[in-house]
């Protein structure tokens, strides 16, 4: 994975496979604290302590009955954060969901770029119409703070039976996310 938004996409897919109904994604950029923080919270099936421990091991996968026996998604994300003075934390409760908090040191020379956040979010929102996404982007720099909130539940309610893949809806979501990312200065982090 070349950037953080690709890892984010991978984590969103985990949440969707855990049958999450709601996925909350918060991205906080705090220049004064030299911090880029991602919090991904779902209400999926969750994991017990043993599974959670194994999920961070590359030779574990929840995808059974198949040849593939490695699961590199979480271990690679963890490694990429920890190797650049960041941290990686998952808490999970069976039946309630999973919360993942990943911190990156903003100025670390080997920190991955945030990457194309818009395409990660657009694809996930449209590609998982059964999941409600709540997205919050926040940029804090000393006294100033800009934020963007996007709630797909409100959009779906407004649309009724019109699918999210309806051409004008794709454009609507695309433009809303683009504006939000620009307004919080997250295009080039």
């Amino acid at each position, binding site marked *: *994975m070349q950037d953080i938004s*690709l890892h984010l*996409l*991978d984590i969103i*897919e985990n949440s*969707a*496979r855990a049958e999450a109904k709601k996925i909350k994604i918060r991205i906080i950029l705090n220049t004064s604290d030299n911090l880029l923080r991602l919090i991904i919270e779902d209400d999926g099936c969750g994991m017990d302590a043993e599974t959670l421990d194994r999920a961070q091991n590359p030779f574990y996968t929840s*995808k059974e009955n*198949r*040849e*593939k026996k490695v*699961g*590199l*998604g979480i271990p690679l994300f963890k490694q990429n954060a920890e190797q650049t003075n960041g941290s990686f934390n998952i808490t999970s409760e069976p039946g309630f969901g999973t919360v993942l908090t990943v911190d990156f040191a903003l100025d670390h020379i080997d920190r991955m770029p945030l990457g*194309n956040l818009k*395409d*990660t979010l*657009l*694809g*996930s929102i*449209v*590609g*998982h*119409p059964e999941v409600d996404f709540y997205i919050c982007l926040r940029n804090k720099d000393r006294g100033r703070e800009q934020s963007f909130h996007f709630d797909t539940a*409100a*959009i779906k309610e*407004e*649309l*009724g*039976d*019109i*699918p999210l*893949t*309806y*051409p*004008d*809806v*794709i*454009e*609507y979501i*695309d*433009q*809303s996310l683009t*504006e939000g990312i620009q307004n919080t200065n997250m295009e080039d982090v």
Partner: protein
Amino acid sequence: MKTLTDLKKIREKAQEEMKLRGNNVRIKVVVGMGTSGIAMGAREVMKAFLEEIANRNLTDVLVTQTGEKGLSSMEPIVDVIDEANQKVTYGNMTPDKVKKVVVEHIVNGRIVSDYVVATGN
């Protein structure tokens, strides 16, 4: 700034269209979005499908994402499923190949056999 009022207009327009041509989904596209698919460019493939649908105003095509399905060596993988539930699986996809699949297969109904890795239902 985009507002919910814009959505209301979209809904009214879409509902008018559906009155004319019905509410059916003709083609379903499923993009494999597992870890290896993502690493091989599945996000860009997904984006290319959404762009083509928006640009060509394809109102009867649905695109979704799913986890990987054990064809890791041919990622990114895409299934195109028709109304009769016939499935064509395309492999090693790129945004350029997506354009061709949309024009040839989804719009004109001709399978792009060069990119096919599996068929069935």
